[in-house]
């Protein structure tokens, strides 16, 4: 059990390629942090620096109160679950679990007890004498988790552990990882490029882009109050609509259309407007709305996504499948559900923050 503090950490590879810049992140004891971002955003590099598999070019990483920049991975008291599991193929499951303990000179009886406990927790007891290649993907994943658990480390580091599994297994393993982490209360850092995985697992998620932190926050906060257009388009499916608009006093012009904002305008002039697909609805006859030209639809079952254009800008709205469609429709927006971003920097403009962003995360029922 330990907190992890990442202080102004950067990574420059030999040859001058910069992977990560100025990461500041304080992770509380027992917290589940998810690093999320597109490939190449530096999330794995950051995790590997915390693990000690990459050297830290700038800044400090502290595990507990100890600076670990120069500490060997083995002595950082962390355990890591790799994307390809990295199970030792020539050892039985038992030996895979016991390897780290044996290397540390743990007494045989204690190794047996710890392996048995981890195996029971992960329901792999009947496979202990098998070699990894005789196991299915999900079972290998459990063994990889088991290898992390038996060591009782201060922190778990997960490097895209579910990306080699099929979609269904991924959902169930996701649940198990969360359950296990809650039960053990071990500080965890989890790297993924899957925003859904990030949303569902995280206590707080860290959105990375181009080696920098875009936003740190609880899942609902990041979803409902994205700090930048990048976060807005990365988190949530379908991605948040981002369109160019212009603020004239309390009026918003999007293409040819003009709507009143009822006092929600944060500034004036050109801005990027963000609006979630589910916050758009088909307008009534008598209200201000955007003219919408329908291009195609996607069925999600509970919802129907309608894709089309407002002026010359792409818009996607999520509507009930029962609503009748026509080639030309009118779409209404609730002014307090709009997000305003600077057109130059892409940063969120100060102003209205939706109430949902401040909702406390649901406490787990154990």
């Amino acid at each position: 059990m330990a907190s992890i503090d990442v202080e102004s950490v950067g990574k420059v590879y030999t040859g001058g390629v910069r992977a990560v810049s100025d990461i500041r992140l304080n992770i509380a004891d027992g917290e589940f942090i998810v690093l999320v971002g597109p490939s190449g955003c530096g999330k794995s590099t950051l995790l590997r620096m915390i693990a000690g598999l990459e050297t830290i070019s700038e800044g400090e990483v502290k595990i507990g109160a100890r600076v670990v920049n120069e500490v060997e991975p083995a002595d950082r008291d962390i355990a890591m679950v790799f994307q390809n599991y990295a199970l030792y193929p020539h050892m039985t499951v038992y030996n895979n679990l016991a390897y780290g303990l044996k290397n540390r000179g743990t007494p045989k009886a204690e190794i047996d007890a710890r392996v048995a406990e981890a195996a029971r927790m992960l329901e792999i007891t009947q496979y202990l004498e098998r070699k990894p290649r005789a196991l299915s993907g999900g079972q290998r994943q459990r063994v990889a988790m088991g290898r992390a658990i038996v060591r009782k480390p201060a922190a778990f580091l997960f490097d895209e552990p579910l990306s080699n599994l099929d979609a269904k297994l991924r959902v169930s393993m996701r649940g198990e990882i969360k359950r296990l982490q809650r039960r053990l209360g071990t500080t965890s850092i989890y790297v993924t490029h899957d925003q859904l995985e990030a949303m569902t697992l995280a206590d707080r998620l860290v959105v990375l882009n181009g080696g920098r932190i875009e936003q740190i926050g609880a899942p609902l906060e990041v979803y409902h109050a994205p700090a930048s257009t990048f976060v807005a388009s990365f988190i949530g499916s379908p991605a948040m609509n981002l369109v160019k608009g212009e603020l004239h006093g309390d009026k918003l012009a999007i293409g040819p259309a003009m709507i009143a904002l009822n006092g929600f305008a944060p500034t004036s002039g050109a801005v990027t407007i963000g609006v979630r697909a589910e916050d758009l609805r088909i307008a009534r006859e008598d209200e201000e709305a955007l003219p919408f030209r329908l291009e195609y639809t996607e069925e999600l079952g509970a919802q129907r996504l309608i894709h089309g254009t407002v002026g010359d800008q792409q818009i996607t709205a999520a509507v009930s499948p029962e609503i009748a469609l026509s080639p030309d429709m009118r779409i209404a927006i609730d002014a307090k559900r709009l997000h305003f971003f600077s057109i130059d920097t892409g940063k969120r403009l100060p102003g209205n923050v939706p109430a949902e962003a401040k909702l406390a995360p649901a406490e787990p029922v154990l």
Partner: protein
Amino acid sequence: MQTKRTVFQSRVLPYFLLAPQLIITLIFFVWPAAQAIWQSFLRQDPFGLKATFVWFANYTRLLDDPDYLNALGATFVFSVGVTVLSMGLSLMFAVAVNRVLRSGRFYTTLLVWPYAVAPAAAGLLWWFMFNPSVGIIPYLLSSFGYEWNHRLHTGDAMVLIIIAAAWKQISYNFLFFVAGLQSVPQSLSEAAAIDGAGPFKRFWTVVFPLLSPTTFFLAVINITYAMFDTFGIVDATTSGGPSQSTNILVYKVYADGFIGLNLGPSAAQSVILMLIVVVLTVVQFRWIERKVQY
């Protein structure tokens, strides 16, 4: 595994297409081998006028001949020496190159060069370097107080041919070890590092066991090489001497048959060598193809 099958209309065509290879095999391999087997049952008179059929007399005499048993022992020492030395060194080189990502290709090219050198040329090279009167190595050794002379000392002679033969094989082993090492995922070493294993322990408990198919394959290949493919090296350096100490089986076949013109016993020796090749080949195909290692 699915194999592609071609169906021929005519029954003659496939045999016709195979004919060139079959003819070469028959003329250059099967026929001489058959001749050797036939020859091994014969005894020539001193003037080469007539030959008598003597059944297994050539074989039984061989096994009673102290020179032959000595050659057997020398071959054993030689092939084990060559295999251990060349595999050990090439594994070291491969591990070193595997750690350097950027310039690895350059070193690899350099290390592969010796393989292109003909055995006799390699032998000559070492003969010069180890030459007791003009060689650089005896000169250096003498400054440590060691009097190197492979023309007089049997141990020196054996060391010389082992080094010369192993040097040539390092390239080949090296290539296989590099390929083997690159197929061991980096993340396994990283996992072991997090699991508290130091670099040496990581190598011996994780990487080396995963190389075992490569190691086993190379062991068989190297023994085969040392026993059959080193004639040129022995001939160019020690010619089997001093006092038969480096007279390995394959060289003795030549020395007895073509220098001593003692064709019957020489043929019997080559038949025994042939049996050893057969055994090694069976071992290779049986065990390596099945990948029993893990």
